[in-house]
């Protein structure tokens, strides 16, 4: 652990003092473990502490620190009777982390975490359900449970997966390494035996997951949790976007953006679009706000006709 600055040590000490003072001689080893430092670091800090107190620093005005038999007592530090309140960033960080775990499919809404969060929110002066809200995207509980077990025990899983970009269902055997949430969606990263490569799967697009009897050796190096990486040989499409469709630039990994000369705020963007259905959805949603400049000009029209067929039959 790197040496802490005086500011960091102050922060720790302001938490250690009230905790120790409220107890009858806790063991140094326990205090050190609890506050994440080595015993000798803790003793260094405590030895400074008993020189501290209030003006004029006569013995009766100093904090009393007693270290004996591996235990520590702190007295006469009434002004440090309570820890420093949480800063807004700390309060938010803890509430958000807790709400995130509670938003995990399968979390116990009445368990210790929920109770602890309610108490914490009360101490921060906010309502637990009102102040911070986290949605991580939906994921079927049963699928989630199977995936977690498979990760924990390194067993293969057979999944029925909806390939969003190609609009088709596939069955694959995968070696799952991590289940995680990013950008508001749940993913499982896994080695996919169908394509013999590492893949990310969105958990909400897995219809069924079956734990198989076969184990696998978990990867030794943690995998990068990147959600989409365009490959150099993915097909590219160039679109001309009205200002109303400018959000595309923020939302997708576009590779080139240039304003259209005299185009009233229109831009021309190039993006990797390896998958037909993905691009169909994008174009259908954008409607008149986008035009394909380079790529399949008929794609959106074809998709629109397919959908319209439903409406005309019905």
């Amino acid at each position: 652990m790197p040496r802490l600055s005086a500011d960091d040590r102050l922060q720790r000490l302001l938490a250690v003092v009230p905790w120790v003072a409220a107890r009858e001689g806790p063991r140094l080893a326990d205090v050190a473990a609890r506050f994440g430092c080595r015993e000798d670091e803790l003793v260094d800090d405590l030895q400074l502490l008993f020189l501290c107190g209030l003006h004029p620093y006569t013995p009766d005005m100093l904090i009393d620190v007693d270290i004996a038999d591996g235990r520590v007592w702190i007295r006469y530090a009434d002004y440090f009777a309570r820890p420093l309140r949480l800063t807004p960033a700390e309060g938010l960080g803890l509430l958000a982390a807790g709400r995130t775990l509670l938003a995990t499919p399968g979390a116990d809404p009445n368990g210790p975490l929920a109770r602890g969060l309610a108490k914490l929110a009360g101490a921060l002066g906010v309502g637990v359900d009102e102040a911070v809200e986290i949605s991580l995207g939906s994921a079927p509980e049963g699928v989630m449970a199977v995936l977690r077990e498979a990760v924990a025990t390194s067993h293969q899983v057979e999944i029925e997966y909806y390939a969003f970009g190609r609009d088709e269902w596939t069955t694959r055997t995968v070696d799952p390494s991590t289940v995680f949430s990013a950008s508001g969606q749940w993913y499982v990263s896994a080695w996919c035996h169908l394509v013999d490569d590492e893949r990310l799967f969105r958990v909400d697009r897995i219809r069924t997951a079956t734990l198989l009897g076969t184990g696998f050796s978990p990867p030794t190096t943690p995998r990068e949790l990147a959600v989409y990486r365009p490959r150099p040989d993915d097909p590219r499409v160039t679109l001309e976007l009205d200002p109303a469709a400018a959000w595309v630039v923020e939302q997708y990994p576009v590779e080139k953006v240039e304003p259209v000369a005299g185009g009233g705020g229109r831009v021309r963007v190039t993006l990797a679009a390896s998958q037909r259905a993905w691009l169909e959805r994008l174009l259908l949603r954008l409607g008149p706000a986008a035009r394909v400049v380079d790529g399949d000009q008929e794609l959106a029209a074809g998709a629109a006709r397919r959908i319209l067929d439903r409406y005309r039959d019905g």
Partner: protein
Amino acid sequence: MHRLERLINLVAALLEAERPLTIDELRFRLPGYAENDATFRRAFERDKEALRELGVPLVTEPLDVLHPDVLGYRVPKDAYYLRDPGLEPDELAALHLAASAVRMEGADGVAALWKLGGELAEQGPAPAVGSVAVAALPGADHLAVLFGAISARRPVAFDYHGRPRRIDPWRLSFRTGHWYLAGFDHGAGAERSYRLDRVESEVTAAGDANSFPPAPAATAATPAWEMGEGEPVVARLLVDVDQAGWAVGFVGADSVEERREDGSVVLAVPVTNRPAFRSFVLGFLDHAEVLGPPDLRAEMVEWLEAQCPG
């Protein structure tokens, strides 16, 4: 003398002060500052900054009514002391687990847990990593400031979509990968939602603490098609069997109006933002169909027809 010692004495002196202490009084009471005036002032400024960084509520105020232009410093105990949440060991352990399983950018969970009583040594071995869902929450500008304002119930001001706003902040939400603030917009006279990465200025305090009542309870995460100002309608949406599971997961099981024999579902979806609803439906390509009301269905047909002329 060690700087840590001086900082502890400084916090103790400011907490015990019954009235604001002037800079000269502090200098007199605190050993360890330099004799030289300029050096002392620099060191004192640095110490003040360090305390504020840690979140110590250091206030600067006039000494008393007789000396309105002489300023002094103190730390009010009620603003410094953490209200004891009274956490049971299992609750503290659960919070600890949450802080280690969820990485939130820009927030240090460790210092917060120290204040709440530190790590639980008796908790036993940490659960296997594989069994813990790992999530990463991105940070965003203004998050901490806004959370502070929410807990103080203090109005804030910032620019958004080119207009200055004054807002009673109610709630921070993380949805579809972005942070949003919901609150009462004084200009609009209604609840509004703002994406934090689109805030165009600093966020500043725009009123006193406790100036509005606690926020109304949040409804479940509001989907985009309910975040508009259009005339509310209830759309009936048919979704084919292959996509039904995930559509229901998205809009909630309460919305299922009918489950058909072939496994498809009819969902009743309240809509106030028609473009957002259209985008949602188009995401299903030809696996979903707007059944009604008739004008909503007609709009969808018209939108699609415009894209395949002839």
